[in-house]
């Protein structure tokens, strides 16, 4: 009994420690700038939603969210469309250099995004892709596709090949089998993959900021440009930060069970 209480104390402290910055962000987002700069207050003294109102009414703010969501969604879709067949091939067929290729995919992840900054910038500028959503989505694919293939391959290997054969024997054509039989069997894997792809793309700032200027500027980039003539608008910035967390929380909520499964399979 005593032991479990001390355990609880430990975990409570830990959670409090981890959540403090998040709380502080929320706290600040409901305060006025004067209060933020005025001194330390644990709760907003004058509770205000003005900061959020600014974001939802000013196009330069809410477009940032729309831009981010657009290229993230594009990225997730492209990644899954590319990685699903690729992972299937890796899990089912033997071909020349399959093991090396598989490892090379993973080693792609070892390069920091900054390495690819200049080539992407130059390339996209010259073919007119600069400052478009698809430009960012494609750039992110370089990192998300290998990760997706890696995760999906683990899930697909968990499905015995006999299922494929059984379906073919029953008369399924390959595309029909893949969509109607196989994908439902690995839906946790797809959930986990989508989650990790989303997370990478959502938080990645360097590529997204460099490859865009106005039309496709992500929210992260906009947040770094809030220094106006009157100084930093702390309240609005906090509100923007709080809103940035929400999509992540939603996605985690939907895939939380699948992620645990993914961890169990040792590929995440």
């Amino acid at each position, binding site marked *: 009994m005593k032991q479990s209480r001390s355990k609880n104390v430990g975990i409570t402290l830990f959670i409090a420690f981890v959540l403090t910055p998040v709380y502080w962000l929320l706290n600040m987002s409901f305060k006025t700038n004067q209060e933020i700069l005025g001194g330390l207050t644990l709760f907003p003294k004058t509770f205000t939603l003005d900061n959020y109102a600014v974001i939802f009414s000013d196009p330069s703010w809410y477009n940032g969210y729309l831009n981010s969501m657009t290229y993230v969604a594009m990225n997730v879709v492209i990644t899954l469309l590319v990685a699903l067949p690729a992972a299937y091939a890796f899990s089912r067929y033997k071909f020349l250099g399959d093991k090396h290729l598989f490892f090379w995919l993973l080693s792609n992840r070892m390069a920091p995004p900054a390495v690819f900054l200049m080539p992407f910038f130059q390339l996209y500028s010259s073919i007119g892709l600069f400052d478009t959503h698809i430009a960012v989505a494609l750039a992110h694919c370089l990192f998300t596709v290998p990760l997706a293939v890696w995760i999906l391959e683990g899930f697909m290997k968990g499905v015995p090949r006999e299922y494929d*054969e*059984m379906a*073919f*024997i*029953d*008369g*399924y054509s390959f595309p029909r089998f893949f969509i109607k039989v196989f994908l*439902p*069997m690995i839906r946790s894997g797809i959930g986990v993959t989508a989650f990790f792809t989303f997370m990478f793309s959502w938080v990645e700032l360097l590529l997204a900021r460099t490859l865009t200027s106005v039309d496709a500027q992500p929210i992260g980039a906009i947040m770094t440009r809030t220094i106006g003539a009157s100084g930093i608008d702390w309240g609005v910035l906090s509100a923007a930060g709080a809103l940035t967390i929400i999509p992540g929380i939603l996605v985690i909520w939907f895939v939380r069970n699948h992620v645990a499964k993914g961890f169990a399979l040792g590929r995440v």
Partner: protein
Amino acid sequence: MSLTLENLSHRVDGVDFIRDANLTFQAGSFNVLLGRTLSGKTSMMRLMAGLDKPNEGRLIFNGQDVTGQSVQARNVSMIYQQFINYPGITVYENIASPLRLAKMAESEIDRRVKETAAMLQISPLLKRYPLELSGGQQQRTAMARALVKDATLVLFDEPLVNLDYKLREELRTELRDLFRERQCIAVYATTEANEALALGGTTTLLHEGSVIQNGPVMDVYRSPVNTLAAQLFSEPPMNMIRGRVTDTEVTFDEYSHHALTQELSKLTPGDYWFGVRPSHIALVPANNDDLEMSMEVALSEISGSETFIHIENSHFEMVMQLMGVHQYHTGAPVKVYLPVNKLFVFDSAEKLVHTPSRISGGAV
């Protein structure tokens, strides 16, 4: 309707899986592929189903070459050792799936599914999902799915190994009855000689990818072409003792001398292999010309209501199978009797030269 394998060979990464197989399966026949693990049973079935393409040889169905035909284009079904069903749909939909893919009318699908389910005694389970069922029920579902579409070739790849003993016997009997009326080619792979005997039909012995012997089950059992066939089709494997026949006597491994009696006297002098089934070795003589040997107990194991005793002397070792539970201590001396009329004789090239002739009335 028949399926013929013509000089079929299959190789993967330089390893021979099937070597030059020539076999013909007739419609309405029940064929058992018997062999140890890695003998090529599954490989052969996969070639027959069209899941793998042979490196050499042809597959002829009704006089038509179907070697390169895709599996979807063939009318086959297969039942695996693992219980493979579509996990996301009900048992009813599982059974119906091949019919739906064949675009059959809904009323016909319903009739067939219910009929097949009744045949396999899973009618009450139709609304449930495969993973909610017991192993036996799952395998029944898989069988129903395989049988519902009236395939011309039905392949069973060790379907009963993952089931418990009782269930296995029950399903085996049912299976045999199900196929009695059907006009399809049934092929059944197993590692167990007893199962092959119980199923009957035609037996094909496979070893390391080669067909050793093929024929009606009793013919294969009673006259194995060589020592390998004899050992494969006997559980535990047939005992083999080297022996030399002279004009007057037979000597086992230069050690145990016996007079030549009965059919053995027809053997021309030379070196032979003598085979005796473990169940034919007795501890008491049945006839006065039984071959008596002094042995020592090396190991005694009890399996169910039978006892297997491994016996040896300085020259050879044998296994004997006794009914009932017996206890023997290691090292205990025993006298065993080999009935002359139940000995198989193979020449030095291990080819069969003599089968026991007194088979009427007694088991061989």
